[in-house]
């Protein structure tokens, strides 16, 4: 595009190779949610995976026995902020799917409060996704998805469902909440897959 904006100089000229196109570095941790933050207690929390043959369900304590690990990762929100080098602690989805039998290749994430977002199963495996319950050494705050949220940080962050309640295995990749409301079915930040 040949236009430029008179008088705008911007700030940083150092292109950060870890910053996807069209993103800027955020100092704070913005909150984006479509509705009220649900009130959730670990004592009432369960997590399930539903498959074509049934499924598996865990209480909080059972789920913790799957084994948590620390995660250092960058996160990228479609509203254009990114945070680099964030630290989380969570259960890898690999451990979850070790306990699940399914032939289906697509996943719908379901949240307490009704949010949904879709993701291919392969994007959740091989060390790419976690059910996180700590952020920067603290319990995950409710407005950021506590007690637990899914994180799949190589996709735009709306793909990382807050207040995660369970996964439903699907034969096809169906659109979730934001995917029905204007946002991309897959959401790769490096390819700027923001909108339809």
């Amino acid at each position, binding site marked *: 595009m040949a*236009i430029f904006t008179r008088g705008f100089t*911007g700030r940083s000229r150092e292109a950060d190779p870890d910053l996807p196109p069209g993103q800027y570095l955020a100092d704070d*941790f913005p909150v984006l949610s479509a*509705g009220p933050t649900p009130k959730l207690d670990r004592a009432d929390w369960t997590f399930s995976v539903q498959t074509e043959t049934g499924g598996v369900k865990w209480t909080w304590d059972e789920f913790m026995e799957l084994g948590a690990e620390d995660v250092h990762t960058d996160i990228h929100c479609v509203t254009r902020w990114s945070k680099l080098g964030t630290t989380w602690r969570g259960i890898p989805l690999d451990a979850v799917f070790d306990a699940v039998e399914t032939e289906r290749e697509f996943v719908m994430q379901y949240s307490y409060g009704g949010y949904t977002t879709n993701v291919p199963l392969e994007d959740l495996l091989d060390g790419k996704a976690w059910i996180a319950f700590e952020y920067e050494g603290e319990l995950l705050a409710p407005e950021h998805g506590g007690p637990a949220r899914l994180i799949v940080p190589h996709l735009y962050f709306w793909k990382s469902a807050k207040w995660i309640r369970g996964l439903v295995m699907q034969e096809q990749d169906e659109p979730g909440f934001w995917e029905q*409301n*204007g946002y991309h079915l897959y959401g790769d930040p490096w390819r700027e897959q923001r909108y339809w």
Partner: protein
Amino acid sequence: MTGGWLVGTVVETRTETPSGRSLVIDVPGWTGNIAGQHVDVRLTAPDGYQATRSYSLASADDSTRVQLAVDRLPDGEVSPYLVDGVEIGDQLELRGPLGGWFVWRPTETRPVQLIAGGSGVVPLVAMLRARAVAGTTAPMRLLYSVRTPGDRFFADELETLDGIDYAYTRQVPDGFARPPGRVTPEDLARLTIPASENPAVFVCGPTGFVETVARALVDLGHDPLQVKTERFGGA
């Protein structure tokens, strides 16, 4: 379907508050938007450096002119330029409209309660305008929380409308009954459409404000699925 980048030209600017300004931008090719939607704005420096941010639209009509209203963030890269730097005739790029959830369509007939904190009023003003243009009779009220009377965006326009209540957090006008302070559950019970009337509720503002208000609304009996929120800033 979101198209590509469109070149817009600033045709009008207006100082709204000590820290905020509204801009009218003529965008040939803009095909209109629904009230509540936002737009990506891209600025390009002479050396090619680009910065992009999302802003809510205050306008919701069929023209090629869109209106933004921007609050200056102290450490911002883009907002200080839009508030203090940009002049009539300057060019920037826009992409949108974006978002299909935090929207109000004039065909909807349910009562609507809008609740704004600070510059969060912008997409809600678009809803008030869309209702006025459509001439619908759907009840629509706004509760607007803002620091002082001088910090109100679109103050003159809002004065002409019915159904607007203010909650000032720092300083109130002479004779204003409610003392300064943050919005409380009691304020919401007194100044907003009750849950029993099953209103559609839109809450927009800083994260802390929206968290507090949305939680209180649920406690007052509103169905969480009928409370749509948009937050800005960290927590």
